């Protein structure tokens, strides 16, 4: 082998760093986009980044609790998707827009 050798297995830290990068991608999506549906998709990105670190901890520590949490997070995300999209629909029906900066009725 030369000076550079490929790792033979992926350490836990790599999964955690990947998860952090994906989470921040979601955060940037939420703060830069105007479309409520894309903001909603960015929130899903963040939820999935957390799921990734949960599964990583679960697999590397040999504890099933992490994967149980992922299961419940998915159920909550499904509920959130249904309610969130219903709110977007109601918003569009009343204001003819899905751009969050044009919705200011709750702004003080």
């Amino acid at each position, binding site marked *: 082998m030369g000076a550079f050798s490929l*790792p*033979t*297995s*992926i*350490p*836990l*830290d*790599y999964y*955690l*760093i*990947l998860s*952090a*990068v*994906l*989470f*921040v*991608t*979601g955060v*940037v999506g939420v*703060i*830069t*986009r105007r*479309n409520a*549906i*894309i903001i*909603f*998709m960015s929130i*899903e*990105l963040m939820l*999935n980044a957390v*799921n*990734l670190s949960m*599964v990583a901890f*679960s*697999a*590397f520590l*040999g*504890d*099933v609790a992490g*994967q*149980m949490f992922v*299961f*419940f997070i*998915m159920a*909550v*995300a*499904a*509920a*959130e*998707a*249904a*309610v969130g999209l*219903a*709110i977007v*629909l*109601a918003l*569009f*029906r009343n204001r003819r827009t*899905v751009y969050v*900066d044009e919705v200011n009725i709750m702004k003080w």
Partner: protein
Amino acid sequence: MELQVLLFTIFAIGAVTTALLTITRRNPVSSAMNLVAHFFMLSGLYLTMEAQFVAAVQVLVYAGAIMVLVVFVIMLLNLGKEQQLAERGNAVRQTLAFATAGMFAVMMIMAVVGGPSGKTALHENAAMIGTTENIGQVLFTEYLFPFEAVSLLLLAALIGSVILAKRHIKEEA
């Protein structure tokens, strides 16, 4: 274990790329399609950690159910490409937003790099805990109460979304 390294590299690059495409595409439908691809990449990453059940549920629930709902709403609202507001050129606010996100990223990555976990390989039980059999076993014994609570949550979400999204029919006196 070389296969795990190869698959992790492919899926990690794929996941980051599709996530970036999701938040940068102007067209909401292509955003949604990239998010579906992202969920498949994550599912692959779960498989590199021997979490078979979570990988299958990821594809079924996220790529299958949730994204169908999202695409359906996008089509229903007939959304076009998102235009950028001209007066949105608020450079200070934009810079602050990216600086905050960047500092957050640095903070999280430093937390991992600064205190390495020392775990370099999967736990020897990893292949055993991720199976549907084991997950079901634990779910219906140790986690039975949260499981029932989640069913209640889903019912509440179901009723809530119907009430929110339904048309208001005028009362005919």
